[in-house]
């Protein structure tokens, strides 16, 4: 029962990632196509673009959402892979606790970055 709930969240997170990461990939990687359509012509990873996105509430919020969804989805998927190798009881607890701690720490750190980025952008006059 508990595993089923966690798995359902895994699939749900996949759907969220599909939308948010799809957008992220289009912005970061299909810049040639976007330029052709006249939507964007600056280098997407240049400081000017980064600072402009950092100043937008939309990007801040969706980055935190993508961070959470992708970390949960990725670490839960990794846990499943490890569980398939039939670890013993102790190793299983180490995996569960270890992956949760690492995932939460990465989430905290990434959230700090997303929330602190607007300050860095305005201070630098971006």
């Amino acid at each position: 029962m508990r595993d089923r709930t966690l798995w359902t969240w895994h699939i749900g997170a996949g759907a969220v990632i599909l939308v948010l990461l799809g957008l992220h990939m289009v912005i970061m990687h299909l810049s040639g196509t976007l330029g052709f359509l006249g939507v964007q012509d600056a280098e997407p990873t240049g400081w000017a673009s980064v600072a402009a996105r950092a100043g937008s509430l939309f990007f801040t919020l969706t980055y935190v959402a993508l961070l959470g969804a992708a970390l949960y989805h990725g670490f839960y998927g990794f846990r499943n892979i490890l569980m398939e190798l039939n670890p013993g009881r102790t190793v299983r607890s180490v995996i569960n606790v270890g992956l949760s701690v690492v995932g939460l720490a990465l989430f905290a750190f990434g959230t700090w970055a997303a929330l602190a980025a607007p300050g860095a952008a305005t201070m630098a006059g971006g």
Partner: protein
Amino acid sequence: MQTRGHPNRLGIRGWVGGGRWGFERYMYTLHRLSGLALLVYFTMHIFVTSTRAVGPDAWKQTMSVVSGPLFTMGEYLVFAAFAFHAVNGIRLGAIELGFAVGRPIEPVYPYQTSVGGQRRLARAVLMIAFVVALWGGLDFFVWK
């Protein structure tokens, strides 16, 4: 682990080849590899992109480290892994939630199986992922 189903006797070897199943068995391997690759990239990505919170100089310095043909190639592989994992993930989700399995029908001769439809779906997934990866490749290396 105590399992109620079959024990996993193949271990990691089972990732690469599981016997006489069709190409869907290798899509499973690819889904697993692409998922793990995305996870490794993403973990590093959090540290790399966090330098934008420090300021423009830190950001520019980091970007100068992660540029060059090797990184461009690596980023393209991430894009291709995303293309496959995303499209195949939709297929897996649809099948697991019962949407793409087909209706149960009476076993009347000539017998039909739902496998035909699922195989068409798997082929479509491979084709769509290929087209997305190709489009990304053009954008990365030709139209940039």
